[in-house]
Structure formats: C-alpha cells, structure tokens
C-alpha cells in the first residue's frame, strides 16, 4: 500500500477524533439555540470557565487570591488541600448551575422579546465578562488538568496497524476516551429530551414559547435548566480540551472552531452537530495534509469556515437544519 494512503488513513482517523471534540462544543450551542433561540457565543468561554473552576477546586486554590494579594499586600495562594476529581466535578457543576441561574436572572430575563441579534451580542458581552472573571478568580497562568483520563499513544492500535501495514498509527488514548464520552453524552441528551418530563417541556419551549407557557410550562425554569445543561456540556468539553492542551485562554477559542460545525450541521440539529463536527474534523486534517504543504500550511484556521461558507451558499440552513421559511 502506498505511504500517502496509509498516512492519509491515520490523518483521517485523527480527524474523526478531533471532529468529535468539535462536536462536543457545538452540542452546547445547539441546546441553547433550540430551547431559547439564543445564539450563545460564550459557549467556548463557558468551557474555559468550567475547566478553570475545576482545576481551581481540585488544587484548592484560593479564589480571587491575585486580587486580594494586590489590594492587601498578603501572600496567599492555596488552601493546602486536594479535592478528589469526582467531588471537584460535582462542585464545578454546582457553580455552573448557579452561573446559569445568574445569567438567566440578570441578563436574558430582561431581554425577552428582543431581536435575536441583540441576544447574540449580549452573549459576546457575557463571553468577555466570564473570560475576565475567570482570570480574576483563578489567575491567568496555564494550568494542568488531570482528572485521571489516560493519555498518550494507544499501544494496541499501534501494534495492530503495524502488523497490518508495517506502520503503527498514532492514536491518542484521550481521543478514544473523548469519543466514547461524547457518544454517551449524546445518547443521554437524546434520552433526556425524548423520555423525561423536563426534556419534553424543553422541546415544547423550543417549538413555541407562548404555547408552552399556556400549558403551564415555566419558561424561567426551562431556560435555567438549558443553560445548566449547556454548562455541563461545556464542563465535559473543558475537561477534554483542558487535559489535552492545558487550561489556558486559547481554550475559549474552541468556540470559533465549533461555529463552522454549526453552520454545516444546522443550528437546530443535534445529529447535525455530530455529523458537522466529523466532516469538519476530517476535512481540515486531510486538507492540511494534502494541500497544506503547497500553500504554506496552517490552513486549519480558515478551512472549516470557507468549507462551511461554500456549503451554505447551496444550502442556507445547513445539513440538518429546519427549512427557513420567511414571511413578511
């Protein structure tokens, strides 16, 4: 078998894995968009904030220590204890729920009935706010996140492919775990929205706010719930990306990776987010592998966008999006 093809296959597999991670972030977008019509730009920062909080709680950091030290001239950093990963994740989840409540109570309750674009800009403001807040509470240095997920090359795949092709594929254990977790997460989300009372209420709200209100569904509650679920998805994405490349500012930029995924898959479709993520992940890795060397590399920054743009010209609502019907 020619070398290019074998390398291409490895790139393809790695692209699939990367695509799963993009899809994870895109899921959070879709959830909020479906339930409230808010296009939530702050999803990436939400993931960063969740990961920062998780690391902070696990290491027993003192919140606002930087600020306190600066104002009072003290020198405090850590409480001096370590919190087990499971408890820390639960505590972080509590923080995310409180955050969801605050976001709903302080921002979006006042913006009901505003144009979608205003809501979108509000989430950009929220993104800036959270980014600064996360840095002020936990400090802006790069942190290591280790919740006990395996990392490094998967030895058995390496061996197996070596026997088949005479070349061992490099597949990261973490990526395999991420894929498994993403699959479980999607299954849980689908089950939740199909079979539980709250899930059905959520879908009702997504369909028609006023009709949902009239049958006694509390919009307030549903929106807080949706933001909490989005916070949970952000936490999972934050754990994955944080374990992979450290918890730092660039984590929030994964939102920018998720946007073309959304455009491709459609803003309103959970399967669309998954399929879109896979297409983008594979597409950009293969493009970089095949065409990148010819044009100077680093095409990953824009390829996804241009792909999505060209795609949208032919199908403006994305792959699985609801048909856009316009009325005067």
């Amino acid at each position, binding site marked *: 078998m020619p070398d290019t093809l074998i390398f291409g296959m490895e790139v393809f597999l790695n692209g699939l894995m990367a695509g799963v991670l993009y899809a994870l972030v895109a899921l959070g977008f879709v959830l909020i968009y479906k339930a409230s019509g808010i296009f939530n730009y702050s999803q990436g920062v939400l993931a960063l904030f969740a990961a920062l909080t998780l690391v902070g709680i696990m290491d027993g950091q003192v919140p606002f220590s930087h600020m306190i030290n600066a104002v009072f001239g003290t020198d405090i950093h850590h409480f001096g204890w370590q919190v087990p990963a499971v408890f820390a994740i639960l505590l972080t989840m509590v923080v995310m729920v409180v955050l969801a409540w605050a976001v709903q109570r302080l921002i979006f309750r*006042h913006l009901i009935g505003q144009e979608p674009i205003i809501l979108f800009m509000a989430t*950009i403001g929220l993104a800036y706010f959270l980014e600064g807040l996360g840095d002020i509470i936990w400090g802006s240095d790069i942190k290591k996140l280790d919740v006990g997920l395996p990392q490094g090359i998967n030895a058995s795949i390496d061996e197996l492919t070596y026997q088949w092709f005479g070349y061992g594929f490099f597949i990261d254990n973490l990526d395999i775990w991420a894929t498994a977790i993403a699959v479980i997460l999607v299954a849980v989300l689908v089950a939740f929205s199909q079979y539980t009372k709250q899930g059905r209420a959520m879908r009702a709200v997504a369909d028609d706010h006023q009709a949902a209100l009239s049958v006694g569904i509390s919009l307030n509650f549903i929106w807080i719930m949706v933001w909490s679920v989005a916070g949970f998805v952000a936490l999972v994405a934050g754990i994955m990306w944080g374990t992979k490349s450290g918890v730092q500012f660039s984590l929030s930029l994964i939102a920018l990776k998720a946007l*073309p995924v959304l*455009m491709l898959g459609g803003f309103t479709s959970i399967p669309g987010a998954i399929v879109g993520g896979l297409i983008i992940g594979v597409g950009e890795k293969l493009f970089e592998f095949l065409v990148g060397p010819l*044009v100077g*590399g680093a095409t990953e920054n*824009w390829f996804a966008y241009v792909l999505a743009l060209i795609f949208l010209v032919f199908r403006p*609502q994305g792959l699985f999006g609801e048909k856009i019907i316009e009325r005067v």
Partner: protein
Amino acid sequence: MIYREAGEFKTSYVDDGQTFPIRFDRLGYYVTLAVAFLVIPFMVNDYWVNAIFLPFLIYAIAAIGLNILVGYCGQVSLGTGGFMAVGAYSVYKLMTAFPDINIFFHVIIAGAITAAVGVLFGLPSLRIKGFYLAVATLAAQFFLVWLFNRVPWFYNYSASGQISAPERTVFGIPVTGAETQPWAVYLFCLVFLVGSALIARNLTRGSTGRRWMAIRDMDIAAEIIGVNPLTAKLTAFAASSFFVGVAGALFFAVYLGAVEVGEAFGISKSFLVLFMIIIGGLGSIFGSFAGAAFLVLLPVALKVVGADMFGWPTDTVAHLQLVIVGALIVTFLVLEPHGLAQLWRVTKEKLRLWPFPH
C-alpha cells in the same frame, strides 16, 4: 432656552434638508470642527496623540464603516479585522510600489481595494442571512489574516514577515515613518475622519441609505416594494469596507508604523469595533464617534485609576477591563439597546422642551 427650532424659518429646500436643522447644533458642529482643526493641533504632545487621539480618530472611521453595514443595512459582520488588514497591506504595497504618488491617494486607493474585497465576501449575504451570515464573515477574517501571513508577496518577502511603513510626506511634512510630528499625524487622520463622516452621513440620509434601512427592517418586504437586494447589500458591503479599509491603512501606516497581521488585525479587533457601534448606537454616525471615544478612553482611564493610582498589577487591571467591558455591553443592551446615541437624542429632546416638562 437657546435649543429651539422656533424662530428658524426655512425658505428653501436646501435649508430644509440640512443635516443640523437647529441653529445651536450647527453652531456646536462648527465650533467642534474649529477646535479640532485649529486648537488641538497646537496643544497635543506625543502621549496624547498616540494614546488617545490617533486611536480615536482611526477607530471612529472603522466604526462608521461597520455601522453602515450592521447598523444601517442590518448585515452583521465579524470580519472587520480582516478588512482592516486588507487596507493595511494594500497601502503598504502601494507605498512601496509607487513611492512618488502622495500617500493621501494611496490611502484612498487602499480603501477602494478593500471595498472590492468586501463586495467579494459580501456576495454570500444574498443567500445567507442572520447568524449564518455573521459566522460566514468570520471566514473572511480568518482567511485574509492567513493569506497575509503566508503569502510572502504581500509583505515584500521581508525576513520577519512584518510590514513597516516607509517615510512619506504630505506638503513636505512627514506623516508616516519615524520622524513624524504629533500634530501632523493628528491632522492627517482628522481630515480622513471628517471626510468619512461627511460622506457617510450624506450616503445614509440619501436614497442609498434608505434602501439599506429598508433591507435592514425587513428584507423581503423591501424586495417587494422594489428595493434590489443585490445592489443594496453589495453597496453596503462596498461602502462599509471602504471606510474600514481606510481605517486599516491609517492604523498601519500612521499609527503603528509596523504591523504583524495576526496580532494587529485579529478577531479581537473585529469584536472591538463591533462593541464600539453597539455601545455608541447602531445606525447612528454620532454613535460611531461616541462608541469609539468610549472604548478608547476606557482602557486608558482604567490604567490610570487601577495601575497608577492603586498600584494594582497590570494583568489584574487588564482582566478587570474585560469584566467591565463585558458588563457594560450587557448593561447597555438591557437598559438602552440603542446606545449612547439614544441617550444623546433623549437629552436633546429634553433640552428642546426645557424648562417645561412636556
């Protein structure tokens, strides 16, 4: 008492259609112009020009440009940074290729080139609407920055990959390069800002502007009453990109002097200009000025208060700035979605009636 329409009798259509129908406004406008052109140049020093005036003038041009697209035509664009980069690299190529032509024309041609690029990236807006379009403009942002980073022809094969502005003069006085005088660069940018504001104001209150606003308010209805969405959207993209390109050219050639594209024209620049027009007021030329002034002054003020007065570490102040800007955006959207310009309008209404409440 003095802010009144009463007693002003318009006797011609020209009088009736003027930009500032109230005498007091007109007076204020002329006084502001006179101060900006005749007083400030004699008072500024290097710090004031570089920290406040130049960024304000240049961002105000960019904000006017973006406001035409977002505020008047309703097409949300997140590609401002990329278009500013087009302006910057165009002016750089023009300056190095045709050193004999006055830089004044280079800047204008750079704006025209950006307008062409803007039309190209505006084409999908005919099919794609709303959020999809906002995200699609990010394609312009990332692709253009990548292009200027990777294709050596754009930066004249310089080893560092940076571009730096050679010295160019207007009437024998250097406005770019290392030997500039603060008043000269100030005046150079001011001329462009005043020109841009005049053109933009007159575009937006003419038939072109009314077409843009019809598209913004409801594009299908506009199409039915005979507004051609193709020309309306593309002229908005062209006009907007022209001003943004001029701003980018000035930002590089006059303000920074040397530029690394990813750093100077990254996505954060797109958001910054977008925030300016949100805080200032969508669909208002005055709002572009107010927003630019606000977001240029805010970091300076925070630095003076936080770092210099209280002695906080600069990184904490920078984070605090993010928090404050974010909170301000949200507050503005909740309390006054039409921005500073609306506050100004309300104030004027009150002034007109003063001292009576109704």
